């Protein structure tokens, strides 16, 4: 077998090499998978990973899909650095979409420039509220935050569905389970006319920059770093052990809630039961692939968005099931975790006893 020796210092270049190796391994895996199911692997990989980048439509959709992934992953990365596991970003995203959407609908015929900022505010509050539930139980009773935040995701999705089938249903909508379409004051401005690419992408870019600044230059970044090393160190730096639990969930809840309202006021334009499509879970991979680094997350978000669009294209053009996206994402995370071992540890072969 082989043994692992912990390296004294982690090679800085691993920030780039590990994700690249992981992407390479995943591509090889899907290449073999396509061969096995009898599709032309070169054509399939071209359709999934290259073709969307060659058209304005593909690029604009890439931006649309990457926006929620980047924003949610930025929020999650704080908790993951500190060892706080918020697996329920999907739920916080859904609540943000519901609260923000409900705020937009509450002022239905009125128009005004203040409607969107107000709905953003309410959505962020909703996301934080939803995130505070597992945080409170974790801090107070040490209840497992993974299970609680995950269970709350199912509750949030059902709550959205209950609201859209009930009080928020469009009164003129022939009983379809969907809300009114948001009017112009409740939809985000488009960056490129004729596409769905909206201003939310600029918000994601701004947040990545802000996060970079906070982590590098601010005391906040110091606490995050220290708490990742050990809880005791955090206490010595002048904070209680629960500080990071609350902070992680507040930030990830706020970011996921914001992503939710951006999704409904951007590409969706109304409340429907199918708003949660798994961005909250995929964002976990984005955070890891981006090495929990704000700009890394930005590029990882774009790549994972590409797998969504490419997956849809492969479904239409090659008759592949949409699930190929999930397979690729799972393999990517596997390869990433495996590749990480080779940067943290020196691997050496040894003879079996």
């Amino acid at each position, binding site marked *: *077998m*082989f*043994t*692992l*020796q*912990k390296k004294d210092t982690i090679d800085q270049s691993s920030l780039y090499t590990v994700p690249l190796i992981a992407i390479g391994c995943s591509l090889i895996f899907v290449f073999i*998978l396509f061969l096995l*199911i009898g599709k032309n692997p070169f054509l399939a990989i071209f359709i999934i990973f290259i073709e969307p980048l060659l058209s304005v439509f593909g690029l604009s959709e890439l931006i649309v899909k990457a926006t929620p992934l980047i924003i949610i992953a930025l929020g999650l990365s704080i908790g993951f650095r500190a060892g706080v*596991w918020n*697996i329920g970003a999907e739920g916080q995203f859904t609540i943000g979409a519901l609260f923000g959407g409900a705020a937009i609908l509450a002022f239905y015929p009125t128009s005004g420039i203040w409607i969107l900022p107000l709905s953003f505010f309410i959505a962020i509050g909703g996301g934080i509220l939803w995130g505070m539930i597992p945080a409170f*139980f974790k801090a107070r*009773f*040490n*209840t*497992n935050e*993974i*299970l*609680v935040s*995950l*269970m*709350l995701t*199912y*509750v949030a999705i*059902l*709550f959205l*569905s*209950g609201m859209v*089938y*009930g009080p928020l249903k469009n009164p003129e909508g022939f009983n379809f389970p969907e809300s009114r379409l948001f009017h112009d004051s409740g939809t985000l401005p488009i960056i490129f006319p004729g596409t769905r690419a909206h201003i939310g992408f600029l918000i994601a870019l701004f947040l990545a920059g802000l996060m970079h600044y906070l982590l590098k230059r601010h005391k906040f970044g110091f606490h995050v770093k220290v708490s990742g090393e050990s809880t005791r160190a955090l206490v010595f730096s002048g904070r209680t052990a629960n500080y990071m639990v609350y902070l992680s969930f507040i930030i990830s809840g706020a970011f996921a809630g914001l992503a939710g309202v951006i999704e409904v006021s951007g590409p969706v334009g109304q409340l429907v039961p199918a708003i949660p499509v798994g961005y909250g*879970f995929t964002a*976990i*991979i984005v955070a*890891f692939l981006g090495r929990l680094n704000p700009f890394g997350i930005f590029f990882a978000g774009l790549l994972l968005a590409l797998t969504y669009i490419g997956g849809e294209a492969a479904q239409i053009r090659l008759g*592949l*099931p*949409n*699930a*190929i*996206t*999930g*397979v*690729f*994402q*799972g*393999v990517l*995370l*596997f390869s990433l*975790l*495996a590749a*990480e*071992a080779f940067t*943290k*540890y020196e691997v050496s072969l040894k003879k079996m006893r």
Partner: protein
Amino acid sequence: MDLFIAIFQGIIVASTPLVLAAVGELVVEKSGVLNLGVEGMMIIGAVTSFIVTYETGSHFLGLIAAVISAGLIASLFGLLTQYLLSNQVATGLALTLFGLGLASLIGQTYSGISLNAFPVFDVYLLTEIPIIGSLLFNFDYLIYLSIIIVVSVYYFLNKTKLGLVLTAIGDSHDSAHSLGYSVKMVRSLAIIFGGSCAGLGGAYLSLVQTPMWVENMTAGRGWIALAIVVFAVWRPLWVLVGAYIFGGITIIQLHVQAVGVNIGAQYMSMMPYLVTIIVLVFISMNKNRLAVNAPNCLNKLFTSDL
């Protein structure tokens, strides 16, 4: 009375996948490993057992396929977490995403086909006993197998040497290692056992509960199985109690809706998840109870030679 019997049978059938998946995960966690990939292993078991049963016509071969395939992808988790020392939480999530995707991919051409009903355990005279016959002796043999597995796990963990070694490894991997026990080997075996059990649970869904293949048919049961392990405070026999309570909530909620209680269907469906949260909180409030049985090294990295 007929309604009562129907509800009782419904609860048992709804709970059995949870029993199987949870008891497997219990052994994994007792050895000190947290595998969040239960959902992914279940769905792999569900799809492979369905395909093999459909192609060969043998339910037995289907079950074998579930045990092997789910055990195999569990061993991938074992390789990564035990030998490449990857983060258990992230690896478990990857297993779930990968399993769900792969299952949809290989099950694509099988969706919507239904299978023959699973054979019922039919001991002639016993089934004929009024009421008790229908309550106890009118099930498929997997239900009896699930109970046998639970009791065996109880016996294994408490009465056998290897079971005590496994518990010791979960409590303090460093001491167990200095005593000369192979931590990684025992944990890897526990992980494969857990995977096989989850696979059986998945097979129960696609062969017995609704004998057909539906994409994402596990619908979060893997996660509920994880909650049941905590609910049971890592005691095998309590897994049965926990799973039957959760199955019970699911079935009773359906009957309440059928009777026409005027709460939205969505709010009733929230019940199992909300109850899980409440139970988790109550259990973690009682620190003494947790402390006795909870494996100390759960989700901690074991790095020998470091």
